């Protein structure tokens, strides 16, 4: 039986190859879309639910007073508070490859909240001591070719100042996307701006993730009647709000994926139908020799299933290889920062689709072949 399937697959090598190739191509595109879609999802799935973000209730473009930091610290279950500000600015030019997040932070409290970045103590000390120092993720330093001691200039846009910074520390983090940013001292910017005493966001560390709803309510209530009302949310919700801003784009991606699946289904079903029709006589001969309907059914389905499995494997193998090469390209296009990886969800979806297409496209021709009356099949010569 297996031998028959194999023989059948090999007897028209060109057709088998063309079908598998189109199936592989479709799955390649499908999984690539999945990867890009994942990268556009800013939500940090690894986010530990023990961190909250507090920002101005109007929007991120409005800052909060410096004094809020102390007040937030007084809320129950809050272990530590640290400010973080989006500096933006321009490094070298506007090209996407030179765009990476730039934050200003307070070294005194930073690590008490962002405890999961890994540093060597000496480097951290060197960074903390020097007002004009900056710290960068390892991956970014590799991309930009920076080494410790190098000096860079960031031209300000939101803040009308240019900052000159010296690389003093390199940190590691296990999420690749998070290694693509730099941190420098908020004091530096504050002084250059004439000490306006402001911060964009405050990050809170809780001793118990279960306390998050209570802390959120307390933080919002605390500033309810002040000039700057705040909005508090978990770090995860904060990240998700950026994905939400992209709107329906992800929906369009899903629609594209659906069209591709329909398209490959048609292609494979078409080929299987051709393959089965060609063999009408043969099927009848097999039946005359004593093969049962079920066996004929299994043979045709087995054949299309084999095409599905092999095609999927080919396409996904291609994706796995291509991601390495395509990453810089995808980044240039502006689809998120790093984090391009073929995760298990995309992988499983693609394999299931590949196999399902293989199975379904074999069903109709298989049933037709099995139903065929022996006499009709032989007559059709």
């Amino acid at each position: 039986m297996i031998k028959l399937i194999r023989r059948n697959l090999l007897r028209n090598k060109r057709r088998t190859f063309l079908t598998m190739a189109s199936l592989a191509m479709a799955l390649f595109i499908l999984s690539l879309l999945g990867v890009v879609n994942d990268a556009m999802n800013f939500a940090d799935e690894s986010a530990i639910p023990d961190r909250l973000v507090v920002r101005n209730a109007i929007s991120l473009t409005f800052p909060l007073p410096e004094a809020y930091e102390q007040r937030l610290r007084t809320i129950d279950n809050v272990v530590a508070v640290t400010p973080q500000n989006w500096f933006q600015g321009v490094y070298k030019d506007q090209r996407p490859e030179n765009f990476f997040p730039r934050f200003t932070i307070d070294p005194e409290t930073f690590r008490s909240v962002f405890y999961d970045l890994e540093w060597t103590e000496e480097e951290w000390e060197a960074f903390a001591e020097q007002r004009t120092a900056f710290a960068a993720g390892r991956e970014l330093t590799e991309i930009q070719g920076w080494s410790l001691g190098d000096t860079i200039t960031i031209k300000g846009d939101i803040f009308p100042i240019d900052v000159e910074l010296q690389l003093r520390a390199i940190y590691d983090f296990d999420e690749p996307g998070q290694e693509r940013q730099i941190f420098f001292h908020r004091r530096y910017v504050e002084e250059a701006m004439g000490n306006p005493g402001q911060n964009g966001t405050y990050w809170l560390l809780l001793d118990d993730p279960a306390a998050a709803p209570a802390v959120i309510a307390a933080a919002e209530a605390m500033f309810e009647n002040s000039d700057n009302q705040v909005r508090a949310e978990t770090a995860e919700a904060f990240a998700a709000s950026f994905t939400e801003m992209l709107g329906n784009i992800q929906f369009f991606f899903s629609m594209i994926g659906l069209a591709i699946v329909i398209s490959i289904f048609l292609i494979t079903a078409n080929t299987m139908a051709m393959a089965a029709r060609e063999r009408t006589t043969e099927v009848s001969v097999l039946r005359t020799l004593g093969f049962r309907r079920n066996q004929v059914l299994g043979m045709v389905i087995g054949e299309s299933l084999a095409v599905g499995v092999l095609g999927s494997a080919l396409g996904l193998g291609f994706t796995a290889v291509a991601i390495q090469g395509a990453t810089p390209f995808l980044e240039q296009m502006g689809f998120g920062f790093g984090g391009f990886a073929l995760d298990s969800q995309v992988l499983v979806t693609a394999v299931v689709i590949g196999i399902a297409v293989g199975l379904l496209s074999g069903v109709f021709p298989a049933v037709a072949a099995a139903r065929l009356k022996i006499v009709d099949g032989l007559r059709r010569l």
Partner: protein
Amino acid sequence: MIPIKYTYRNLFERRGVAFMTLASIGFVVLVYIGVLALAGGLRAAFADTGDPSVVIVMRDGTRAEMESSYAQESHRLLTTMPGVERTADGAVMASGETVTIQIFNRVDGTETNVMVRGVEPGAFGIRPGFEITEGRVFEPGRGEIIVGRSLAGRLGLRVGDERELGRNTFRVVGLFTGVGAHGSEIWGDYRDLGDSFRRSGYYSSTRLQAASPAAARDLIETVKADQRLQVQALTEPEYYELQSETSSGQFIILGNVLAVLMAIGACFAAANTMYAQVAARAREIGTLRALGFKRRSIMGSFFLEAVLLGVVAGGFGALLSLPLNAIQTGTMNQVTFSEITFQLRTTPFALFSGIFLATVTGVLGGLLPAFGASRQKITDLLREA
């Protein structure tokens, strides 16, 4: 020459197989046109904005209006520049505006940033396309706002609704359209909004009307040469060009990459179908050859069949994509990080590109099978039967 009739009759004769191939190529075309329509719609949203005779001035070094901020003195200085047009009754055709961003919820509950623009009375004079579609324009000092019509749909805002903007509550008194990307914004009086957002006395941008695009260039030079100002000046289309490119560029690249990859897959499918056609018609080909048709004619005929298949599939895909046109949607403007609403546009260019893609697929997919058909020996062909 084999009559063309033979070609299309063949496709019709084997319509089951031909239709499957046609549909699969058609879906490829649909995806391609869909992505192009997305990019085209985004582009159009920006392209309809701005007049090459209008100069927009922002603080030096900023990319977007909401990043920019400068004091009233600079704005006053700008409005006195030579080359700024005046209305019939002598008023300067200029508008100082303040742009901020506030979080809103869309109808579907998701969150987005919305641009809120405080404008002076001059704002309408320099935007002749501005049109109120419902209600009326806001009156200064009364806490009123107007909302871009397409944005109002996305946010579920209606005339009469009240919303907090900054510290104060504002009432929606009208919906507007006709000003391109501004249709994704909320407008109110400069002073009302400045007060509510505590931006009084500051401007994000100043728009100056010049007599012509050439005069606008001169005006830009004048502004840049003024030592008292630390600003940058560019025409409105230049300003929106950056947002357009940054926001739509990735979709155009994505569309093309997808199209090429999918077309390769579809080529395999087309080749498969044509090979099957050739194999199924062995006896026919032999007969044609025996009747005296040249190899070249046979090849031409099969090739034509493949091309025809491609063209028809392209038309089919284009037809499928037509309902996409004018679908209202929105995404994030990647320069201002705020909502930009737009309509998908299946432009003639997009439709044509789709059909072209399908034709190329047919050509590439049909080349080898057609060649193969013409190479076979008559004796073999007839014997196979």
